[in-house]
Structures are given as C-alpha cells and as structure tokens.
C-alpha cells in the first residue's frame, strides 16, 4: 500500500474589504401585495439529513423576492421545493409544514405536478437550452401541451422573445440551433422559454452566475420588466444583484431563515447581526 501525504489545503484568497452595497430599488415594496406563495413551518430532508429547518415566509405577488446566503444554506433547496423539482432526487421530501400556492398545498397528493410546473416556471443556474432551434425551444412547452396551431405558436414565440428582450437579436435566425447563441442570450432564451407557457411564478436559480457583467445587466433589466407580469423568486450569490433587482430579500444560513424583510431594510438596516455580517461581506 502506498501512504499518501495529506493533500495541502487549497489556499483561499481572502475576500476583499467589505464592499459598499448600493441599494436603489425603483419603488418601495408594496406592502399590501397579496401573498401568492405561503411557506409555513417547512422542514426539508435529504434522506436523514435535514436541509431546511422550520422555514416560514410569504412571497408577495408581482414582486421580486431574492434568497441570499452562503453556499449550502438551503436557498436553492427551498426554491426547488416551490415547483417540486426536488421530487427528482431520491429520498428528498418536505418532512413538515406546508407550501401553499394560491392557498393550495402543493404537496397534497391530489395536486397535479404537471399543472403545478406549468404554473411555476423555472430558470436554472446553468443555461440549458435544448440542442434544437430557438423556435423549437420556445414552443416546446406548448407543443407538449398539444398546441399545434402554427399561428398561435408563432405568436407565442414572438411575444416570449420580446418579453425576454431577445426578439431583435434573434428574429432572423429563429430556426438556427440555440447552442449557437452567446451565454447571455442562451439564458434569456431559457427565460423566454419559461414565460412562453404563461406561468404565474418564475423561479430563478442563480440565473447570472455563469454570465459576464454585460449579460448580467441585461438579465437584471429583464427581471425588472418581468415583475410587472410575474411573481419572481430569485436565488443569488451576488448581493449587489439582490440589492439591485429585488423587492424583498430573505437571508438563509445553515438551513434556517435568518431574516426576511424589504430589501432596503436587509441591506441598510438588518435586524440580525449575522445578516449584517453577511451583507457587508464579512463572510460567505
């Protein structure tokens, strides 16, 4: 047998000095907005390991809610609970509490998961257009629902691409492969694909983590536009992004919801010292 020397720890570049965070939400959050998603005392398990403890929060309609927190804090897990994407993982389950959308418990066995996912769209961290044409990507959701009318599909493609601010860039190459687009365009295509099925809620799982700043800015602009129509929940690593484009922010740490408030409050005047430490860049 070979005995191997212990591998050296990877050296970590210490994070830069606390960054000043610019918080400038366009309008103060509307406190009267109806809560479209109600998360009520939710515990979540991966097998025996508990990933979320006792989460309670309400997500208001037609606003952007950001989930922030260090890696592994459970923010993506919670997001994936909202359209039951976690069902794909063996042994993953909501072990206590309820998640209600429009008052319906989505984990109720009577709930049709397909309908749920049509209502709750999702955009993933890594842009994942299908290796098909742009047109086919957008119309995929409708086609599998049985929509065959060419006129209707064309209309939806244009509307969705316009909605995703992509129409002018791609209208001449709708039938080319989506894989030929740039990273930012691919991610906006994924957003367009999600809104093509007319969901009420769009979940975004770190949508900009693989994008350059310019593409990121475009997606953020898009999020601003989209919230007029959709309820958006976004998971992000990037605090500036949360500050720039969300109305409300939830900070998670070690599977617990530490603080949930207006974005302005979270960044300017956090109630919890952990939140303050995180948003000022002292850890995470």
């Amino acid at each position: 047998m070979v005995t191997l020397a212990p591998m050296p720890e990877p050296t970590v570049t210490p994070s830069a000095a606390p960054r000043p965070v610019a918080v400038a939400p366009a309008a103060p959050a509307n406190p009267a907005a109806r809560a479209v998603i109600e998360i009520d005392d939710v515990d979540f398990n991966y097998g025996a390991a508990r990933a979320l403890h006792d989460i309670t929060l309400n997500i208001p309609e037609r606003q952007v809610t950001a989930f922030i927190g260090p890696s592994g804090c459970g923010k993506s897990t919670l997001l994936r609970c909202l359209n039951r994407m976690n069902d794909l993982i063996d042994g993953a389950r909501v072990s206590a509490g309820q998640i209600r959308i429009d008052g319906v418990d989505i984990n109720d066995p009577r709930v049709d998961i397909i309908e749920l996912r049509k209502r709750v769209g999702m955009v993933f961290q890594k842009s994942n257009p299908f290796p098909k044409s742009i047109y086919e990507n957008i119309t995929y959701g409708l086609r599998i629902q049985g929509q065959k009318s060419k006129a209707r599909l064309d209309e939806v493609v244009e509307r969705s691409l316009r909605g995703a601010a992509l129409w002018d860039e791609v209208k001449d190459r709708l039938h080319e492969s989506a894989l030929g687009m740039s990273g930012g365009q691919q991610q906006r295509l994924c957003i367009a694909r999600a809104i093509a099925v007319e969901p009420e809620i769009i979940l975004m799982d770190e949508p900009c983590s693989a994008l350059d700043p310019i593409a990121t800015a475009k997606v953020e602009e898009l999020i601003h536009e989209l919230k007029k129509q959709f309820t958006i929940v976004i998971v992000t690593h990037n605090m500036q992004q949360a500050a720039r484009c969300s109305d409300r922010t939830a900070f998670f740490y070690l599977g617990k919801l530490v603080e949930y408030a207006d974005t302005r409050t979270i960044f300017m005047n956090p109630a919890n010292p952990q939140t303050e430490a995180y948003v000022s860049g002292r850890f995470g």
Partner: protein
Amino acid sequence: MSATTENQPLPRLATREVLLRKRRGWFFGMTGDQVVKYLFQGNAAVSIIVLGLITFTIFKDAVGFIPMNHANLAVYRLAGLEYVDLYREQVTAHSTMSRYLADIRARQLDILMQQEGLTAAAAMARLAAFDDFANKFADTINEQETLLGTMSDLVTAVKERQKVAEDLMVARQNLLGGMQGAAPDRAAQLQKDAAAIQIEVIDFKAEIQPVLALRPELVAANASQIAAMREIAAQAPKFADAELSRRMGKFQGFVQGYFKEVEVIAGRMAAWDQAKPIGWLEAFNAFAFGRKWVTASFWQDWYGIIPLLSGSLLIAFLALLIALPLGVAAAIYVNQVARPAEQKFIKPYIEFISAIPSVVLGFFGIAMLGETLRRVSQIPALDWVPGFPMAERLNATTAACLLALMAIPTIFSLAEDAINNVPRSFKEASFALGATRLQTIIHITVPAALSGIMAAILLGFGRVVGETMVVLLCAGNRIQTPDLASGLGVIFQPVHTMTGIIAQEMGEVVRNSIHYRALFMVGVVLFLISLLINWLAQKIVRRYRISIG
C-alpha cells in the same frame, strides 16, 4: 377545432382550480405516466427473469443426474462390473510392466544401432534373448486375461439384460402415458400392448454366482502366475549400460510390487459386497471428484468432471499467464507512456480485437497456429524446453495462446480504466517530489489501480473459462486429466474442457438420458464458476472504490 378558437388564448383558470383538477386515471386508476413506468419496470425485470430462467432450466435438467447416476452406479455394482474391474486392475498392472520391458528393449535397440553401429538385423539378433524373456514374461498373464474375459462376458450379459428391461419399462410407461385422452378403443389397445410387454426382473444375486464361482480358479491362477513370474524374473538378462541396468532393477522392483498388489486386489475382491448400497453422496462424488469421463461405452459410463475441469483450468491459467503481462503492460503503456496519437490508434485497435469472432480464432489455430507451434517445437535448438517437441499440434498451449488474445482486450480496457481513475493529484504529488515517470507508475499509479486491475484479471479469467469455440477447435479434445507428473510439458498435452464437452456432445445425446443430464451438470458448474468470479470481482471493485474515495 377551428382556427379562430385556437387563436384566442384559453380562458385562464385560477391556479387553485387547475392544481386540484382531478387527475386522469385511465388505466386501473393509474395515470399514463405510472402505466409507462410500470411498463419500463416490467421490461427491466426481464433481466431478472432471464437469469432466473437460466438458473431454473439448467438446474432442472441437471438435478436429475444424481438419481440417474445413482442407478448407473448401482447397476455397475449389482451386475458385478465393479467386481470385474477390480480384477482388471491386476491385469492392467501386469501389462504396464510389459510395456516397461518394451521401452527398455527400444532403448537397447537404439544403443545397439546408434552407438555400436550394428545393422537392424544384427541388433535384433542380439536382442533375441531379451525378447524371449519379455515374451515369457508377457505370457504369465494369459490365464488371468482369459478369466477376465470370461467374467466380463458374464457381467456384460447381465447388464445388457438389465438395459433391455429398463428400455421396456420406459416403452410400457410411454404406452400407458398415451392412454390419457386417447379414444376408448385406442386406449384399450394401448393397455393391451403395455400388458403384453414382458419385463424381466433380474435376480442379481443369482446372476453373480457364476462369476463368484470362479474365485478358486482365480486364486489358483494367481498362485501359478506368481511362481512363474518369480522364476522368469530370476533369469532376467543383464545389461552393460548403466542406465539400462538401473531400469532393469526398477523392473524387478515393479515385479515385487505386483506380487503385493495381487494380494491386495485378491483381498478387495474377497471383501467385495454386491449388496452394499450406493450412497447418494457417492453418486454426486462420482461426478464432482470422478477422474474419468467415459460415455457411450459398452462397459461402463463414467461422468467425472475432474478431467474437464482440470483441462479448463489449465488452459485458463496458461491463457492468463500470457494475457496478463501483455494486457497490463499495454494498459500502462497506453495510459501513461504513449503519445496521444498512439493512444488514439491503439485503444480502438485493441477494442477491435475483441470483435474477432472466437470461431475464426479457433479456425486460425487449426489452420495455422497449431502447425506453426509444432514446427517451432521441433527445432533441435529448443530441445531443452520441457515438452518439446510437441506430440500434438492441437494442445492446451495452442488454445491458450488464442484465448490470451481474446482476454487481452478485456484485461486491457478494464485495467486502463482503473489506471485512468487514479486521481491526477496522486501523480502530481509524486512528480512534485521529483519522482520519474516510471517511479510514479510503479509506486503510485499501479498500486492505486491494483484492485481495479485485479478485477480486470478476474473478469478476463471468466471470459477465458467460459469460451467455447477456441477450446473446442484447438485444445486437442483428449479427455484426460493433465498429467502433472510430466512436469512443465503438461502444457503441451491435448486436453478437453467443460465448455468443449458440452458443445461437442450436446448435439449427439439422447434427450433426458443420463449423458444429457451430465452435460447440464457441467453447465451448472460453469454457471456457478461465472457467478463466483463476478461476485469476487464485484467485491474487489467495491473495496477499491472505498479506498480511492
């Protein structure tokens, strides 16, 4: 649906309504997706079912072997064949001595002609005295041979009658079996036919009496034989040549040994008990540890797996001995040493070798390799190699060479995978400490991949043991346990294998006969070996994952 209605967006239902809409249970209350899932699952279960069916089919036909072999051995004893075989040992021992004498004569002839330069006629003349001696010696067994012949005739006649009786029994059962569902008049006819069959019930106890009655004659014959042999052995010719006189001395030893053996055999024959029952274990052991595989014999059929198993194992070990260094060397070379261009060429090439059909390899062995190997073995300069020159062109080594070629791709690709899975960081750490590439390979890469390589070897072994066509065509197909006494030369003996015997004899056996079932027993052994190898390989691989992870 008309276009106008389609163009209008569907009226949007409230989420609440949509989510709780009753699901479409259209197949025994299951949704389409569930039905599809069970469909796929059912399909996947086919593998389990097939494995179960294989197990069931071959075991079903194999288990019948034990009772049949039990009956086979019972008749062997009851009819007295066993008794006669005891006596046959004595005759065989005697003829072995005669053959030894013939061997001495051949050597002496060689010496006379080669060293003393005598002509054939002159040499023969010089050997006349020896020949006289040898002939006299050979004649001392005549009486025993006659007696053996008499006894053989008696017992085979009984066995023959027993066989006829058994066949008639089967025929009657078939007739009676045919009655079910037959028309009444036909059934009556069948019953009449069945009743008409006369089955002899053989009284083995009575039948054996004439054979046992010969015992006084046997004793007398032995006594006179021993006396004659003593006398003849005392007059044995002497040789000037040291080697030959050593052999003559050995011969005298054989004669003394023979006298003792005669006594032992006589004792065993006296103790032989016709009525002693055959145990079930004995019927099984005759297969599992039997050293004879004799079928379709007029005398007695034996179904012992040892010659086949040992042949299979001999070939497999030889093949691995060749394939292992080559396969592992190639894996190390390709993964660690070769340039990318070389890798791109060698890997598909070796993968491609595995696509050569085994029957083509076997044909190549018959048409080309066997003869080539024999020619090589006949080169005088290679006489020092044990077993050279080869007696047969088709032997264990011929088959093993080709099997090695078949096992190399398996060993290569699995070993290469194992080496490839060694984390890069191990290697880099070694390089960073100033080790050369070779040192890294020897001390880091190969040890870390060792369990993967071991699994590769096991699976290669499995492939070789289970291979049929190459051994069937090239192993020589002589049913004989490889004679380890001949030293390393054993690898050039023709052998038979488990796979080969099934392929060769399956086509010719009577269905459900004992021979048929014996072949299924061999199949069971092969099956169990393959399971064992798989289990071991899995175990090794699992441990290896943990050690890396």
